[in-house]
């Protein structure tokens, strides 16, 4: 398999947050989620696409997501959707990330001033 560059050092917890945010709007399957992350982040966030599934399965085991098999256009796919526990987790993660991003932004602005 060919090399696909990722930015893992800055990715801890990010796929989880983005997946929860995307699934808050509607149920999606893995490929759709990756495409949505790619287009939503203007390709800034690059992950090996297959890596999304362990995150989805882990969130499902934690009760944050639920899945169901659905056949669309003759193809059977596993669709994921957010649970109430997943909604709470999203709120907590969003708050943490907003605080963190705000702090980093302030520090960067301070360094430039």
């Amino acid at each position, binding site marked *: 398999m060919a090399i696909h560059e990722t930015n893992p050092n800055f990715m801890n917890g990010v796929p989880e947050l983005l997946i929860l945010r995307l699934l808050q709007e509607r149920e999606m399957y893995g490929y759709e989620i990756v495409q949505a992350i790619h287009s939503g982040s203007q390709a800034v966030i690059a992950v090996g*696409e297959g890596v999304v599934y362990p995150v989805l399965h*882990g969130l499902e085991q934690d009760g944050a997501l639920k899945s169901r098999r659905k056949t669309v256009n003759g193809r059977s796919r596993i669709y994921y959707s957010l649970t109430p526990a997943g909604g709470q987790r999203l709120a907590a993660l969003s708050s943490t990330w907003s605080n963190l991003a705000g702090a980093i932004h302030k520090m960067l602005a301070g360094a430039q001033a």
Partner: protein
Amino acid sequence: MTQPFEELRELLLRAGVAPRHVRRYLGELADHLADLRAEEERAGRSREEAEAAALARLGRVNDLAQAVIKQRQFQSWCARAPWAMFSLAPLFLLAAAYLVACVYLWCGWNLFLPAADTPFGTPLPGSIYSLTNIYFQAGKYYYICAPVLVGWGIGIVAARQRLQLVWPTVALLLIAWMGASAQIEASRTAVPAGLGHISMKFFAPASLAISASLLHAGVILLFTALPYFIWRLHSAHALRG
């Protein structure tokens, strides 16, 4: 399944990931790969180019494997607690199988030989084709086969999860010794109501019976371990090939 997924499957199983998680992960990766390939083909690439680009986008085999391996919740119980799965569980399974055998014996004893003090050594009424004979013969074969069946179960689990040789060997040795040292006794007069009492003893053969028990254990071990070791030899040969 394409070659990268075969490699990924072996990596995951050898790292102790539960087979059901491996199966689901690979199934979803295969679907994702098909979507990526179709997207690349729509973009004008040839089938071979589309396949290569799709695999590159999916991720490196090691990255795909590590993403699962680092999450402990996907580990099988055989990887998390092999001491329990390969020392306690087989003994409990075999004990449960023997419990079923004892209940079966007790039912047949009260149904077909209500006057006998013990079902062992009592001449059975009727021909060899009688229901009584068939019933007790079936029970005897179940009793003899129980350790072999439990051993095969252990072998199947060990093979599916690509386990190292140590723990399955421990399990097979324990099963063989428990099966060989099992002693069953039955007496109707042992309990006041005359309903009959069946008991079993394990791991402590009489001193005179030790050599016979060792031989019996060897036979059980041979039958239980043989399919598993043949599978190991076959898979080692396939890997070399």
